[in-house]
Each structure stands twice: as structure tokens, then as C-alpha cells.
């Protein structure tokens, strides 16, 4: 543990860089970039949570955006019930997500491979249509929030405040997952990814470990949802459509699965790329798609693979 793993160093550098964004862009006279960067951080949290199950657990969920939605709706419901504290909303979002993930995860884990991909999609679509049908929450139109949440009495109305809370959440979750993936539990999860039969022959039953990981990932993703709702001050079922789930997978694979730093980098770059390309042309999707295809063709393991070939960072936990 004493010498920091290269990837951990890369992550710390990344976080430091992100911490400098608000003062730097303010100094450059474009403070609004903080909001753009905040969006990148939110999706980094979502991608990070997906990495736990997809990268470390080899469970390819095509319905992960559902938990983004649960988090967002926790804010809308919280605001309605007088829960304006961010922590309370996070707890609510986690409770909703954990409940849904526990039931649907237990059923989904009966299946493997492509069937798992599709059954997780099915459950997410059900959640999506459930919220579309809730007229009291605006149905398909969604619901605008009157104000952002507060954290322990401090308002997050300012973009700077929300930004650093998001960065704090990302770093906390990164640290937590860094520990988790190196813990006993994380080892069992990785072992199951490598060879489930071998793990059984050691005396493990993969199911409870996979299910717990699935629930943890859901809860962490709902944190991203809570923050997304606060960032946009708006909650909509569009946050949980299958397209969004696909985008989360894309961010993760783009960054390189099974490495926490890759997940963060993938989300940052993917969201940033979309942002930059959209400035130049309405047809930005063409360029974005091209980048994705080229990355797959010429850089297996995504951006992390690319970084490794360029000599930045190496193998290691994290």
C-alpha cells in the first residue's frame, strides 16, 4: 500500500484538476463552465457505480439509469414532503434504489450474459413507464424543482457550492469503492468475474455477493441522480430511459472497465466531448460516434488502455 498505485495517483491528479476548475474558469471569465464540469462529475459518479457491477462483477446492467431516476425522484418527492436536506434526500433515494435493486437484482441474477443485459433493461423500462404514468409528478413532462437542496443548513443554490459537494461525493465514493474493491468482498467479486465455477469450488456461493454488489451500485448511482436533479433543478423520466443506460455503459467502456480511474475518466471525457462537439455542429453525433468506433478499433480497454500504451499509469488496483 505504501507507494501509491499509479492509477490512484492518476485519479488524485484528476480530482485535483477538477477541484481547480471553478477558480480557474472564474479567473478566465467564464464561470459557467463550472456547471458544465459539474455535469461531468455527476456522470462520473454514475459511471463509477456501474463499474462496480459491470467492471468488477461482470454483470452488464442495461438498466442502471433507473437508479439515476430514483435519485432524481427522491429529490422531487423529498421537496414535496419537506425534506430539503441533501443527505435526507440521498437516504431516500438510496432506500428506493435498494428496494428496487434487491427485488429485481435477485430475479435478474438468475440469468447470465445477454439475458442479464436484457432483463435489467426490462426492469428499468418498467420503472420508467411507472414514472411516466405518475401525473402528480408531471408524468412524461417531469417536474421543475422550486429550489436546490441544502446540506446541513447550507444552501446549495450557488453553483460553486454544488460543484464542490458533487466533487466531494465523487471522491468519497471513489475512496469507498477503492477500499471495497481491495477488500475481502471485492476480491470475491473479482474472483467470480474471473471464474465463477472456481469460486464455487472454493466454497463460495456467488449469488449473495453479486446481489449485494448490485444493490450497492444502485445506491451509489442514486446519489448521482440526487445531484443531477439539483444541478438541473428539474426531474424527468427521461433520466432513466434505456438510452441513458446505454450511455452509461458507453462512458464506462470508453474509459476502460474494471478500473475506477477509467470509469471517472471515461465519463469526464465522454460528457466533455459531447459538450465540445455540440458547439461546432448540429451533427455532433456523427463525430461522437466516430470517436467511439475509433477507440474500440484502435484502443482495446478504452482510454485506460490508451494511457497504458502511452506509458501513463500501469496495472494495479484502482
Amino acid at each position: 500500500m505504501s507507494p501509491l498505485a499509479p492509477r490512484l495517483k492518476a485519479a488524485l491528479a484528476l480530482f485535483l484538476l477538477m477541484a481547480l476548475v471553478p477558480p480557474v474558469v472564474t479567473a478566465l471569465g467564464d464561470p459557467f463552465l463550472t456547471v458544465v464540469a459539474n455535469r461531468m462529475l455527476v456522470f462520473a459518479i454514475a459511471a463509477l457505480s456501474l463499474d462496480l457491477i459491470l467492471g468488477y462483477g461482470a454483470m452488464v446492467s442495461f438498466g442502471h439509469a433507473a437508479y439515476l431516476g430514483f435519485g432524481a425522484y427522491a429529490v422531487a418527492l423529498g421537496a414535496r414532503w419537506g425534506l430539503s436536506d441533501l443527505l435526507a434526500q440521498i437516504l431516500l433515494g438510496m432506500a428506493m434504489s435498494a428496494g428496487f435493486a434487491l427485488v429485481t437484482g435477485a430475479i435478474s441474477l438468475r440469468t447470465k450474459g445477454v439475458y442479464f443485459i436484457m432483463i435489467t433493461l426490462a426492469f428499468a423500462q418498467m420503472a420508467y413507464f411507472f414514472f411516466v404514468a405518475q401525473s402528480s409528478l408531471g408524468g412524461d413532462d417531469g417536474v421543475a424543482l422550486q429550489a436546490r437542496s441544502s446540506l446541513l443548513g447550507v444552501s446549495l443554490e450557488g453553483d460553486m457550492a454544488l460543484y464542490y459537494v458533487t466533487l466531494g461525493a465523487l471522491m468519497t465514493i471513489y475512496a469507498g469503492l477503492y477500499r471495497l474493491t481491495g477488500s475481502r468482498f471485492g476480491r470475491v467479486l473479482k474472483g467470480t468475474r474471473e471464474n465463477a465455477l472456481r469460486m464455487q469450488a472454493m466454497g463460495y456461493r456467488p449469488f449473495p455477493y453479486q446481489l449485494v454488489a448490485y444493490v450497492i451500485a444502485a445506491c451509489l448511482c442514486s446519489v448521482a441522480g440526487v445531484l443531477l436533479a439539483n444541478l438541473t433543478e428539474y426531474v424527468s423520466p427521461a433520466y432513466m430511459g434505456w438510452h441513458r443506460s446505454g450511455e452509461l455503459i458507453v462512458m464506462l467502456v470508453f474509459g476502460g472497465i474494471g478500473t475506477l480511474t477509467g470509469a471517472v475518466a471515461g465519463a469526464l471525457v465522454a460528457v466533455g466531448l459531447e459538450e465540445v462537439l455540440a458547439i461546432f455542429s448540429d451533427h455532433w453525433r456523427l463525430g461522437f460516434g466516430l470517436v467511439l468506433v475509433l477507440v474500440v478499433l484502435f484502443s482495446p480497454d478504452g482510454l485506460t488502455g490508451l494511457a497504458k500504451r502511452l506509458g501513463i499509469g500501469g496495472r494495479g488496483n484502482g
Partner: protein
Amino acid sequence: MTNLFLLQLLNGAQFGILLFLVAAGLTLVFGIMDFINLAHGVLYMVGAYLMATFAGLTDSFWLGLMLALPATLIFGLVLEFLVFRRLYDRSHLDQVLATFGLILMLSEGVRILWGSAPLNVDMPELLSGSVPLAGPLKYPVYRIAVIAAGLASAVGLWALINHTRVGMLLRAGASNRPMVAALGVDISRLFMLVFAFGAMLAGFAGAIVAPILSVDPGMGESILILTFVVIVIGGVGSIRGAFLAAILVGVVDTVGRTFGPIWLRMVMDPSAAAQTGRMLAPMLVYLLMAAVLFWSPTGLFGRKGAK
């Protein structure tokens, strides 16, 4: 009521066959070659757009179809050469990422070339009009032609996979490529042809449905998930499964949508039934898939232990 029920059953089966027509090409590429091609939907869309263009240029449905088919075949070959052949040996996730990228590129490319507004394809004179059916309802002749095309694809694929040398090589190649290569078969050429053929099937489906559905840049995405649902319910790699699953999805969706609220009204008060019915209608297909996978984790006809 009974008449209407039977009619809706027929409509459901008809919709199912339509779905199978689109899913057929995907079954081939996904089921046999174990390749997750999210871009299947856009290939279907490209087929429809090429059809619209050629039919417009030649002023004939049939000439348009005859030009659109080889065009999608060539398009498939080009895509295979440029992108797909580099992906066969890669993980499913890499395939997902690359084909997702292709969706973005091709959808946007279609918008650049053809614009965002939906296009029209006229029905051929020969197949327009309708035949009378139960009571006042007339059944469009073109629908019958679509059903025929779907059934023909099903039979053709089944025969191709199970009763031809190519089919045998394919099945063997999918499970053990070195072995087939050792038999002196050029496996990469075989896969190339199969992929292009799958692309052509997708394009064929797009061209055939163009006169009844909107030809627009979103048509590929709206059908993509449904075709995956069909293939997964049927069991990956099973033509028979995909066919039955398509019919099942069509019937459950159609009959559930129309009769669900009526059945719900028997157990709850009308306004609650209407509310619940509306919420459940779009979920039906997904409920069906979750239920099937719960009961049989590899679909109806999936190989046990297969991915």
C-alpha cells in the same frame, strides 16, 4: 366481443410476423455469430431510406426494392470490411460500444443526406386495396404480403441454418472456429457473407415496412429494443424461438393493450382500471420478457449454459 378478440389475436400475430421480419437478420448475426449488433436497427433504417430513394427515382416499388436490396448488401459488405470484421473476436462490450457509435454516426448521416422530415414510399398498385374480413373491417392486401414475406424469411432462414452446408459450417464455426478453419473453410469470408446477408435482411425488412410505417431517422431505434426482446425471449441462436417469441410479443402487446383494461375492470373500479391499464400497456412486452426469463433463464429455446 369474441369476434373482436379473434381479430385482435390475428392482428397480434400479424404484428409479430412484422417483428420477426426485422429480427430475422439480427438472429443470424447475434444468434449464430454471437455478435451483439446494436446497429441492426440503423441498417433497417438505411434499407428503408434506400427504398424510398430508389422507389422515388424509378417511380416503381418493385424496381426500388430490386435496387435497394443489393445496395444494402453492398452497404453491409462495406461496413463489415471497415468495422465489423475487427470486432468478431472482441468482447461483447467492445461490440456494444462500437455499434453504439455506429448508431450515432449512421442516424446522423441519414439526417444529413435525407433531412429530418419523414419520407414516403408508395404502395405498389398490385398490393394496394383491401380484402373484406369479418364485418365492416377490411384487411389491407399489403399486410398479407408482409405476412408472406415474414413467413418466407422464417422458412428460408430455418432451411439455410439447418439444411445447408453453409448453415452447418456456420453452426460449427460459431462454436469452434479453429476446427472449421482446419477443414479448409475460409471462415472470415464466411462470416463476411453472413454479416452482409444479415444486413440485407435488415434492409429488406426496412424496405418492406416503408409503405406502412414512417420512414424517419428514429425508426431504427424504435424497433431495436423490440427486436432484442424478441430474440432474447426466443432464446439466442434459435430461429424457431425467435419466430415464436415474435408472435408471442405481438399477441401479448396487441391483445393486452386492447383487452387489458376490460379484464382489469372486472377486478377494480373503472377509473382505477383505466389508470392501471394505461400504466401497464407500455410495460407489457417487458413484463413478458422478465416473466419468461424468470421462468426459463435462457429464453424459450435457448441453449442451456449458452451466453
